[in-house]
């Protein structure tokens, strides 16, 4: 039965795992994602799930277990964060290259050095070219909903590409929230039975996975691997729509908040978008035409759709919880700015890096951003294209 439950982000993911009951789950403990694994271990010990649960000796091994199990034909998942995702890096490319529909919950956390356990997006942004689909969550409900949809997207025959679902470390992973947990059978029905393609366990069709591929065909194979992620946008859209029809919460590539007559826009992903909504409400009550655009899917990046949504703005601020050393701006900014390039009339656009290592971002900070946007819109000039929020300098 569908019910309201009080869960934190990690428990929300674990709850989805319990309902989906994948064949193999392999994960190594790392803050702040550990509770996902622990809760799954408890489900397994209590006989609430039937999937195999493996505790390997590192994240690299965890992803290797996932790849082996997925190649064998299993529905597979893992969870990790930060350094753990970084240690998986080699295997992330293998999972995507072999088009294995593995699903991973990534509790976004900063990267060492210096060591810090709090939330930012440096970990998943570092994996943005690995070939995985990336979906980000604003709160526990979205983490739960996204994780369920991730299996449908990953396993779709046109896609067959691994998916990671991001949720902000501590801010979401450890915050309790009342969420709608859907009926077990309905979730199972929505996700459906997994039909593996070319499983190694099909011994009547013998096959080698991942053999050497040199200058003769490697390029062609790499090109054909991209088809999965290229085919994914209509699937992501359809799954989000179907989820809405079934459970009442529809998802697209991004969410627009009070954007109808907006002239200024703040673009921000994940948990900070929740705070931004409060700031927008306050700004709107002061008569300011400011809206929010919250990207949900970062890979594949919806350039065209976002550009269409932003093209008539006077000024846009893109907020990244990650830096990209030596680049023209942080990842979200460069994607959006690039998407707007083909428009003759386009907004002034600036980039702010915020919240590294879990540094808080508050309503007042968004309001500061809005007032800077107002000035940019008024004067038509951008003084500083790249700067920081709430940083002591």
């Amino acid at each position: 039965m569908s019910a309201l439950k009080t869960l934190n982000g990690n428990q929300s993911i674990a709850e989805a795992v319990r309902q989906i009951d994948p064949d193999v789950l392999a994960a190594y403990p790392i803050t702040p994602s550990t509770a996902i694994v622990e809760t799954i271990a408890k489900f397994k010990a209590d006989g609430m799930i039937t999937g195999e649960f493996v505790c390997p000796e590192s994240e690299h091994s965890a992803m290797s277990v996932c790849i082996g199990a997925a190649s064998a034909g299993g529905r597979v998942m893992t969870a990790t964060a930060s350094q753990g995702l970084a240690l998986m890096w080699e295997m992330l490319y293998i999972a995507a290259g072999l088009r294995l529909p593995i699903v991973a919950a990534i509790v976004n956390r900063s990267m060492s050095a210096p060591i810090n356990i709090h939330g930012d997006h440096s970990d998943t942004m570092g994996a943005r070219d690995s070939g995985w689909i990336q979906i980000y969550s604003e709160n526990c409900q979205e983490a739960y909903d996204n994780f369920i949809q991730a299996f449908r997207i990953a396993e779709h025959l046109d896609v067959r590409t691994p998916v990671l679902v991001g949720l902000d470390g501590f801010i979401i992973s450890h915050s309790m929230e009342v969420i709608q947990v859907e009926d077990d059978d309905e979730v199972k029905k929505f996700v459906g039975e997994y039909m593996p393609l070319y499983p190694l366990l099909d011994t009547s069709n013998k096959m080698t996975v991942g053999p050497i591929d040199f200058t003769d065909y490697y390029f062609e194979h790499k090109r054909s691997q991209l088809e999965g992620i290229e085919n994914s946008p209509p699937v992501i859209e359809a799954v989000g729509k179907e989820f809405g029809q079934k459970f009442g919460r529809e998802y697209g590539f991004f969410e627009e908040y009070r954007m109808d007559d907006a002239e200024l826009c703040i673009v921000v992903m994940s948990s900070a978008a929740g705070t931004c909504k409060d700031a927008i409400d306050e700004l709107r009550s002061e008569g300011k035409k400011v809206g929010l655009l919250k990207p949900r899917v970062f890979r594949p990046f919806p350039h065209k759709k976002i550009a269409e949504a932003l093209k008539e703005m006077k000024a846009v601020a893109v907020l990244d919880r990650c830096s990209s050393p030596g680049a023209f701006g942080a990842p979200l900014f460069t994607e959006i700015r690039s998407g707007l390039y083909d428009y003759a009339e386009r907004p002034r656009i600036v980039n702010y890096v915020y919240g590294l290592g879990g540094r808080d971002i508050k309503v007042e900070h968004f309001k500061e951003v809005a007032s800077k946007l107002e000035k940019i819109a008024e004067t038509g000039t951008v003084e500083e294209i790249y700067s920081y929020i709430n940083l002591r300098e």
Partner: protein
Amino acid sequence: MKKEDRLEEKNPIENLLRMDRIPHIWCPGCGIGTVVTSFAEALHKSEIDLDKIAIVSGIGCTGRVAGYVKLDSFHTTHGRAIPFATGLKLAHPELKVVVFSGDGDIAGIGGNHFIHAARRNMDIMVICVNNFNYAMTGGQVAATTPKDANASTAPYGNFEYSFSLPYLAEAAGATYVARWTALHLRRVTKSIQEAFNRRGFSFIEVITPCVTLYARRNRLGDGLNLLKYYYEKSEIQHGADTRTLDISYQGKLIVGKFVDKEKPTFLDCMNEHLAKVLGEKYQLYGENND
């Protein structure tokens, strides 16, 4: 002692601690601080030049040691303390390099580095604080968790075999191997002193209480109960065959110095080999000529 005097009293190993980082994060009853005290005592007694020592830690509760000691220290990533220490030692062969980390770090995620440093007989000391679980992240099952013990990822008991670390160390090539518990403070100190005087890969395992996670999850009581367990069930057997050192859940703990031998270190082997194949044009690298 009067209350005022107590307040004035300094921590006896204050000169070796970064007091601005104190209070530390370790739980009441934890054994890591005990091992740090033994280590400080050994440093003091060995009269080692504090500028010639470097401490390397990985990640985890014990990984925090690097941040608390007032010595050249490095807090590396999870499992990589030993390769980091290897690089440090080879760049500065005159340094005494000590890896101070936990069982999860050294035998779990960093297990590969552990066996290879022992195989090469790298001239470093590894102090492994073994509390039988991944404590920092909440007590998950580790490569050292005894069979049947509960852990957060093994709520009804661990069914995997666990490593016997002295056996692994000796089999891989370590030249000094000892095991103690947090109760054997003076023995730990003595082993560390001895290891400072040895060349080659020294390995000292110290079994310590993890009260908050391991003990509580297994209903073993508090720190004192675990020390009582060490007192009742540990047996000193110097030179014991390392094949006999398996630890069963709340079972006998064979402790002592098991291996103490000499063989050429990595640098000795490298110098000898290259001098042989390159002849006079090879300049010996290492302690006496840098």
